[in-house]
């Protein structure tokens, strides 16, 4: 494995490896001294400490994002087992709404939590399916039923306001 350690400019007429690694010149030394290692450890742990403090401060001053209220559909607009696609909270966040029962509507983000393929509703299996890597999600709470995704689908909280279904929040 010498070619790995010799660097890019290999050749036959070079100094032996030990001479290169234990060079007479301090500038060419390649091995790490105890003091250098200690310095590295101290500085990296200091960096991690500062990073943790920063994360702590950030979580202390964290403000929950404010979601807009957005009418999505009319009650009874889609049949039981039907779906409607919409965008929430912004135009680029594609979501899927399913009418799972007479008075039951659920909304989820359409982005698979694995690699962001668009999930679709499989009425026969009553689940959300991602066609890319066969990741399946429950329609009840968006939990992963099988496949590579590790997190449930973000849920869109829907509210009935009169005859309108309004998206009010994204959870997860």
């Amino acid at each position: 494995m010498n070619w790995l350690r010799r660097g890019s400019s290999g050749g036959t007429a070079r100094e032996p490896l030990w001479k290169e690694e234990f060079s007479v010149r301090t500038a060419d030394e390649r091995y790490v001294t105890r003091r250098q290692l200690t310095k590295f450890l101290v500085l990296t742990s200091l960096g991690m400490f500062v990073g943790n403090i920063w994360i702590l401060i950030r979580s202390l001053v964290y403000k929950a994002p404010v979601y807009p209220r957005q009418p999505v559909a009319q009650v009874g607009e889609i049949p039981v087992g039907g779906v409607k696609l919409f965008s929430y909270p912004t135009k680029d966040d594609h979501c899927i709404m399913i009418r799972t029962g007479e008075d039951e509507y659920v909304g989820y983000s359409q982005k698979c939590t694995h690699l962001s393929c668009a999930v679709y509703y499989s009425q026969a299996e009553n689940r959300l399916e991602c066609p890319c890597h066969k990741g399946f999600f429950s329609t009840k709470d968006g939990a992963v039923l099988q496949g590579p995704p590790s997190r449930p689908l973000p849920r869109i909280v829907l509210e009935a306001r009169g005859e309108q279904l309004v998206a009010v929040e994204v959870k997860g």
Partner: protein
Amino acid sequence: MFGYEFYVDPSRCIGCRSCLQACEECDTHRGKSMINFDFIERKESIRSAAYVCWHCDEPTCAQVCPADAIKKGEDGIVHSSLKPRCIACNNCVLACPFGIPKMMIPEQQMMKCDMCYDRTSIGKRPMCATVCPSQALSYVRPEEIASRREKPTNIFYFGSQKITTKVYMMAPAEREAIALDVVDYMWEENHELVAARQ
């Protein structure tokens, strides 16, 4: 680093040994003199020569060190052995063609001239060069030394070994390099410190 170079001119040495005393004051090796001081043909003459480490470009002492204890810094100074590494094996003492390294038996460590690293690294002159009354040891700018009759050279031949150094030796103007045949020098009738290279 600061435009100064070290020049050794043994022909100017008056044997006062000020440099030895001054060297002991240096903070990097307090109380120990790192000057090499020799009498030449003491039987017949009062000639003496004080000289410091030549700080070779390819230091033989460091090359033979089995413990990787002798290091040449980025500014060309060859330092004393590193105390945690030196195993007091005497390899460097035997290998140096100039006979510079000194084995400090009580410390079990090789020590040598480091050109007063604490001083020269901040632009001050080495202790020996500050006290030498005849400027046999001088630490000056190259243009200041150019006015001397002798010319500086930093090329030495020991047999077939060519050595180039950081410190300059003042040699007769016609000499490009200083060649020493150590075996020749040992013969009584044929010893010349400065001999022409064949």
